[in-house]
């Protein structure tokens, strides 16, 4: 390691000879000079590593744009320089923290966020994740209609983020697609900064708070940070927690937190209830003041839920106490190696965070008998999200939400341990033991504690690197299943704009955006399932759909329904299907070929990215 190779400060002759005894004054000099040199070397290494990470990312960027489809995701498809940059950036932050250079640590932290999130913006031409399209549609609807349209979908009852985006579009002319494209970077930067403030409010030092922010960034493989209500709600929620922890001294902060909480309440369906649980715990433990303000938080969340209770009921019971069912996730049936590897990455990152946080929590409880309330408050922030599993499955996404919500609290709990590994060399512990036992390496005497510190820094960096890689595999593992081309956005939007009332716009598989423009609203009012995906039909998922007899049969069924019907088939659907094993390989291609040749289906769009066919009105058509 470069730390061990830096020119050593002069070591007193007596120590060089015997390695045992150094006068006290010499020991102080030794301690000071060696520590300063080591810190300088570490700072230099940190700066170099951060620059290397940024340069490697820039080198890898073109390969991300042109990467061929790989079931194992972007880490395997892009240049290895990308993986190196993902590892080196957080390691640079660790080295900077070890060097005691906060400024450098901040720079490395920002580089870390950028190399982990910029691919979604710079390596793509349109916002990733097909479900982003729905959020763009609601934003467009509010701007076009001048308000929400109750009854269209659940988003109309929680319009906070969409209304804010529509406001931004109205006053600036900014295309929401552009905002959505840059959203992951902005959301993750804000989330990381919010965790830092939360850690500071929890009494952590600046260095430990930086470590917490780094851990929160690295552990966040959930991918909530796209253009979505939960991304905004998560940032606001962590900000509210940071304010609440400061309210012990200044109760005004609790009122500010209430404003943020109100915004969370009108933005996202689930986040307010996790936040309410934490607020109640804070107030009971005396970590937030005035204690009775918890009642106002409950009133805001409960009141808004009561106002929209009819909407919630449409999506099933409010409480589902079957925890085993709630734990089940939508996409973690390991049906392919890519999915299995991504799930493994997520599990490793989650286990590192949760197990580390639990150990840190228990240790802190045992050690800090006086400050148990503060430790319990952090424990509440870290582990209260698990209570969600007792009450809601959230459409198979509850476990992802638990992970997301647990990140800030767990990161703040774990941070002191990582920070301790990265302790600044040259501190008070360099003393007699520093010269009692030593070894020789390249002619430079390296006292054992310094070697120990080097090992500790290396250990801390390795933990962080493992977290970074496993989390990145979970985040980028399904890269090719989640990319959407601008042409597909354009084609789907064009169909929605021209679709007559009562039309069905069916997708052969998930993966393509839907409801991308305001015109989806009349279709959704007519039939909330107007854009159903065929995999939800009985006997379709996993079967050979490229079968002429089956196509004839379902075409007859659709004719019998008497509704204008479109079928959308896109490259994104094929990628999604191949990744999640939705259909046998090549089945969608065959299905597409048969539909294009079928006399009852006319071609609306047929290009390199998408094929959209429409059921002909006239039986003689084709």
């Amino acid at each position, binding site marked *: 390691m470069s730390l061990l190779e830096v020119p050593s400060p002069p070591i007193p002759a007596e120590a060089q000879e015997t390695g045992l005894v150094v006068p006290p004054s010499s020991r102080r000099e030794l301690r000071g000079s060696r520590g300063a040199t080591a810190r300088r070397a570490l700072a230099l290494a940190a700066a170099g590593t951060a620059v290397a990470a940024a340069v490697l990312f820039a080198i890898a960027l073109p390969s991300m744009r042109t990467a061929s489809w790989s079931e194992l995701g972007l880490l395997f498809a892009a240049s290895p320089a990308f993986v190196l940059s993902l590892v080196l950036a957080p390691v640079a932050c660790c080295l900077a923290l070890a060097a005691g250079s906060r400024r450098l640590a901040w720079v490395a932290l920002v580089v870390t966020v950028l190399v982990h999130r910029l691919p979604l913006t710079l390596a793509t031409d349109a916002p990733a994740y097909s479900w982003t399209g729905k959020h763009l549609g609601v934003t467009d609807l509010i701007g076009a209609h001048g308000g929400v349209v109750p009854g269209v979908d659940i988003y109309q009852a929680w319009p906070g983020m969409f209304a804010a985006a529509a*406001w931004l579009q109205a006053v600036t002319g900014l295309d929401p697609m552009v905002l959505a494209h840059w959203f992951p970077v902005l959301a993750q930067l804000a989330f990381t900064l919010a965790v830092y403030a939360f850690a500071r409010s929890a009494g952590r030092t600046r260095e430990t708070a930086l470590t917490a922010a780094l851990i929160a960034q690295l552990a966040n493989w959930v991918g909530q940070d796209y253009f979505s209500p939960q991304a905004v709600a998560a940032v606001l929620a962590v900000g509210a927690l940071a304010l609440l922890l400061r309210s012990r001294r200044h109760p005004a902060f609790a009122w500010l937190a209430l404003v943020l909480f109100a915004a969370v309440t009108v933005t996202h369906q689930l986040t307010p209830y996790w936040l309410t649980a934490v607020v109640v715990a804070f107030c009971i433990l005396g970590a937030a003041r005035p204690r009775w303000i918890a009642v106002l938080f409950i009133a805001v969340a409960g009141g808004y839920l009561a106002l929209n209770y009819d909407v919630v009921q449409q999506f099933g019971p409010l409480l589902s106490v079957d925890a085993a069912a709630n734990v089940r996730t939508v996409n973690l049936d390991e049906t392919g190696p890519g999915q299995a590897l991504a799930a493994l990455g997520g599990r490793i990152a989650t286990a590192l965070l949760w197990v580390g946080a639990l150990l840190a929590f228990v240790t802190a409880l045992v050690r800090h008998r006086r400050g148990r309330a503060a430790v319990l408050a952090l424990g509440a922030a870290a582990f209260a999200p698990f209570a969600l599993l007792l009450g809601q499955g959230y459409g198979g996404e509850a476990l992802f939400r638990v992970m997301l919500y647990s990140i800030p609290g767990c990161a703040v709990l774990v941070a002191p341990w990582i920070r301790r590994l990265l302790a600044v060399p040259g501190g008070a512990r360099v003393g007699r033991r520093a010269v009692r036992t030593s070894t020789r390496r390249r002619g430079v005497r390296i006292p054992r504690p310094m070697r120990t510190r080097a090992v500790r820094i290396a250990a801390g960096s390795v933990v962080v690197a493992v977290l970074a890689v496993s989390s990145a595999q979970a985040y980028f593992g399904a890269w090719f299943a989640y990319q959407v081309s601008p042409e597909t956005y354009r084609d789907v939007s064009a169909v929605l704009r021209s679709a007559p009332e009562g039309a069905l716009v069916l997708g052969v598989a998930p993966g393509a955006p839907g409801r991308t423009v305001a015109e989806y609203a009349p279709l959704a009012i007519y039939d909330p399932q107007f854009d159903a995906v065929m995999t939800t039909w009985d006997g379709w998922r996993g079967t050979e759909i490229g079968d002429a007899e089956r196509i004839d049969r379902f075409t007859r069924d659709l004719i019998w329904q008497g509704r204008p019907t479109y079928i959308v088939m896109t490259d994104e659907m094929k990628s999604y299907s191949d990744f999640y094993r939705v259909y046998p390989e090549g089945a969608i291609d065959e299905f597409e070929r048969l539909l294009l040749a079928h006399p009852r289906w006319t071609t609306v769009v047929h290009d390199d990215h998408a094929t959209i066919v429409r059921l002909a009105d006239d039986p003689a058509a084709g």
Partner: protein
Amino acid sequence: MKPRLPRSDESRWSLLVLAAAVAGLVLSLATPPTAIAVPLAVAFVALGPGGAVRLWVPMPRALTAVSVPLTGLAVLILGAAAMAIVDWWQPRLLAAVLAGAAAVAVLVHSSIALPHARRAARGIPADARAAGEGGP
């Protein structure tokens, strides 16, 4: 010689919030090109409403960096969501109201709190000034 007063944290924030309020007013009255309007909107939301609160509620630096922009975002979300829910969509009016509120907060703060801070900086008790005993 008149003593030179150190520019306090409050006066810096007053200037920032006023600038943000002006940005908000520009957005509410005109339609600048997107490349100009977006930074104006970001500055307005990130510094305006939250900065106005910050004037009245001093806070640590780490908290300021988070709570000021998030307060602005929260206020914007609440205002925009309220307009969307009641079906009365007036985005420019919302910008004007928030900008006006931020400007008023600065003016009120300047007329009440800043003189106190300046007197404190000069070492003149407020009640002495009120009794006509102070002055530079």
